[in-house]
C-alpha cells in the first residue's frame, strides 16, 4: 500500500476527482492548505493589477503563500503509476504552480466499520 500525496490547484480538484472516479479510485482526503514552491510563492498566479502608487515600494507583489488543495489517496502498490499518471494528465497546465506529487510507504490500514486490516481495507 502507498499513500499518494498530491498538492494541486484548488480549481483542479473537481476534474481530478472525476478522472480518478472513472478509473475506480473514488476515495480521497482533501485539505485546504497554503504553501509555496521553488518560486517562493510570487509566481503571479493570484496577482491582480494595482496602480503603482498603491504598492509598497521594494516589496515583491503577489502572495507569500498560495492556496492549494492537499489530496491524500491510499492505493495498492500496483495502482500507484496509474493514479500518478492520471493526476499529472489532469493537472498539467504548463504554468508554474501545477503542484507536486509524493509517494509515501504505508504500513497498514484498518477499516473501522469491519476491522479489516491490510490491503482489503484500502478499497
Amino acid at each position, binding site marked *: 500500500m*502507498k499513500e499518494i500525496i498530491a498538492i494541486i490547484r484548488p480549481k483542479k480538484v473537481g476534474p481530478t476527482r472525476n478522472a480518478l472516479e472513472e478509473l475506480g479510485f473514488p476515495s480521497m482526503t482533501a485539505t485546504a*492548505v497554503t504553501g509555496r514552491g*521553488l518560486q*517562493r510563492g510570487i509566481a503571479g498566479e493570484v496577482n491582480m493589477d494595482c496602480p503603482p502608487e498603491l504598492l509598497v515600494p521594494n516589496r515583491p507583489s503577489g502572495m507569500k*503563500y498560495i492556496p492549494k488543495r492537499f489530496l491524500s489517496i491510499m492505493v495498492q502498490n500496483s495502482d500507484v503509476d496509474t493514479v500518478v499518471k492520471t493526476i499529472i494528465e489532469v493537472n498539467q497546465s504548463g504554468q508554474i504552480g*501545477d503542484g*507536486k506529487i509524493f*509517494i*509515501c510507504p504505508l504500513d497498514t490500514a484498518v477499516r473501522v466499520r469491519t476491522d479489516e486490516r491490510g490491503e482489503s481495507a484500502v478499497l
Partner: protein
Amino acid sequence: MKMIRAILRPEATEGVAEALAASGFVSMTQIHVFGRGKQKGITVGSIRYEELPKTMILMVVEDQSVDDVIDIIKDRAFTGNFGDGKIFVSPVEAAYTVRTGATGL
C-alpha cells in the same frame, strides 16, 4: 527523500519559514491544525483547553538536508516552554512535478 512534518506554534512559523528560505529550503506547505501533546492541552484559570491551535509545516527534502532543516526549525521555534512542537520525519519514495511530469524534487 524524506518528508518533514513540524507541528509548531502558529506565531513561530513565519520566522521558521524565513530562516528555511534563507538557507535554500523554499518549498513548503502550511496547514493549520488543532492538537494536544503530553500535557493534554492547557489550563488557564479554571478553563481547560483540550486542543490548541498549531501550524504544521510540511516539506520534502533530500536525505542529506534533513539534519540541516531540523536544526533550523529547532533553532527558530524554540522558546523553552511546553508546546514548542514536534518534528516528524518519514520516508518518501518518489516525487513528481506535475507541470513537467519529471521525477525528483
